[in-house]
């Protein structure tokens, strides 16, 4: 084994694996060690049951029925919105728009706020750390409107170059769209400071919170952003549900982006009028069960306490960094001072894709590849990395299983002397 006892770091005793039924299954005859939480998290029984209970007892369409069940479903859906509002500390439930996830939330802002407010020559400021979902919607918009993308570079540790940020930020900057936590490297960006700087030049701010919300308390008013997007499925909730926080002043002035039922006030062939926000941005029947399950996931997370989750994950990341980083031939990619529980790495002589296959046969699930951040990988001169991304249910034993599996891969490839 390659782990050194001295590298072990005290980790909190948080152990909630038994809350997550899937974590007791085996893969390839081995206990599942799930370290691909940056892609999606597993769901606790409380969330699975919440969705099941909705369909068993409460299912009806919302905002249209005079019957009791429809009103009941509407109340539950609205309660879920209020739950998300409290979770993010938004000022009002009307500032929360349910979406399919982060990607749809960003596309909503691009297509509604962007088309209504941006002009040729305007600049949108992004960073090298962005996921494709916070790059491509803006590229599409720039092609249509003649705006320009500007990109804040990162240093060798994977931290934003703040001097370059200051230089790129200017009076032409109309929007700062930036990730809270890098999905590929784990870098935590100083979003409150960056939003304050952007506000000072009159720019609107959007935070991609997909990788942040499950790992630390997020307070959109303290951050001071105009938009904050996240996905339920990375927060222990089902896929297909997420939310956009939008400051009310902006949201109320934004035009619809998708037309259909539920987003209108009146419809006639001479013209239609729109429902107020947030309904104006939720055309068609939404993912009602998903929203209710999302609220259940937030309840579950708050039941444990996000501060406790953050402390557990920080300790686990320190343990993982020491343990995996100490393996001969392993190089960690992304060593920012402020990091969330994501470990990107390379193993000498073993392509990440080969490593992923070998780890999988040991029951260890990681991601191998470019992590939907191709510009970032290009910046580091890498085709991709192996990535272990941690969640509240991971334990030091999971990290040790990862280390043992890497050791097995090195033995198979003959790239390391066996101990």
């Amino acid at each position, binding site marked *: 084994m390659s782990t050194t006892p001295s590298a072990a770091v005290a980790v909190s005793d948080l152990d909630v694996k038994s809350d997550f039924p899937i974590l007791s*299954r*085996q*893969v*390839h*005859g*081995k206990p599942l060690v799930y370290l691909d939480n940056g892609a999606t998290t597993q769901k606790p029984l409380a969330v699975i049951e919440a969705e099941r209970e909705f369909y068993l007892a409460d299912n009806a369409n919302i905002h249209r029925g005079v019957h009791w069940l429809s009103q009941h479903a509407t109340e539950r859906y609205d309660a879920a919105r209020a739950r998300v509002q409290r979770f993010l500390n938004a000022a009002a439930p009307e500032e929360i728009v349910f979406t399919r996830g982060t990607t749809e939330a960003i596309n909503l802002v691009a297509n509604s706020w962007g088309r209504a407010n941006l002009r040729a020559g305007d600049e949108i400021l992004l960073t090298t750390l962005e996921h494709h979902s916070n790059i491509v919607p803006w590229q599409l918009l720039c092609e249509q409107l003649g705006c320009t993308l500007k990109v804040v570079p990162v240093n060798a540790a994977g931290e934003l170059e703040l001097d370059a940020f200051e230089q790129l930020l200017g009076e032409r900057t109309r929007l700062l769209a930036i990730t809270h936590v890098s999905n590929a490297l784990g870098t935590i960006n100083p979003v409150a400071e960056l939003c304050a700087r952007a506000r000072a030049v009159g720019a609107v701010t959007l935070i991609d919170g997909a990788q942040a919300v499950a790992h630390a308390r997020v307070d959109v008013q303290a951050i001071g952003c105009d938009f904050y997007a996240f996905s339920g499925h990375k927060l222990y909730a089902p896929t297909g549900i997420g939310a956009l926080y939008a400051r009310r002043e902006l949201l109320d002035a934004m035009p619809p982006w998708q037309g259909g039922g539920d987003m209108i006030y009146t419809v006639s062939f001479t013209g239609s009028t729109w429902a107020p926000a947030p309904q104006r941005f939720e055309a068609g029947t939404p993912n009602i069960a998903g929203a209710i399950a999302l609220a259940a996931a937030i309840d579950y997370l708050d039941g444990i306490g996000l501060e406790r989750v953050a402390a557990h994950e920080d300790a686990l990341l320190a343990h993982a960094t020491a343990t995996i980083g100490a393996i001969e031939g392993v190089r960690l990619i992304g060593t920012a001072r402020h990091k969330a529980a994501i470990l990107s790495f390379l193993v000498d002589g*073993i*392509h*990440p*894709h*080969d490593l992923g*296959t*070998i780890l999988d*046969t040991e029951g260890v699930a990681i991601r*191998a*590849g*470019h992590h939907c951040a*191709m510009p970032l*990988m290009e910046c580091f001169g*890498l*085709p*991709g990395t192996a990535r272990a991304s941690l969640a509240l249910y991971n334990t030091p034993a999971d990290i040790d299983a990862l280390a043992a599996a890497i050791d097995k891969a090195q033995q*198979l*490839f*003959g790239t390391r002397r066996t101990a």
Partner: protein
Amino acid sequence: MNIGAPDLRELYQEVIFDHNRKPRNYRKLDPHSHHARGHNPLCGDQLEVFLQVKDGIVEDVSFEGQGCAISTASASLMTEAIKGKPLAEVEALFENFHALLTDSNAAPERDFGKLAVFAGVREFPARVKCATLAWHTLHNALSGAQEAARTE
């Protein structure tokens, strides 16, 4: 349901390690009559295949690029397998090889030589595209396709 572990040794046989460490015909072929690029964006595998074809025979073939052990070894073994072969035979081998990796029932009874090691890839569906990238690139080079070959 528990799934038994597929045997890693079926996938990573010594011949694959050998060709990954020391890829054969790894160079740019100049002059060449045919050339194509292949790209697998999901894993970042990229390679180029060069051929010198004369009178319907592959006189020489080479490749360059970077990728995982499976894609590198597959490209290397492919160059060995097709050098000196008539084009019709190369195309047939491409079809047969693809069947070998994806559908055991469709794979013909033939001597695949060293290429037979890739039968193990069948147990790892996520890796089939790694093993076929070089072949798709070869196919594009010979058919004059302008776009880079993709196995995504």
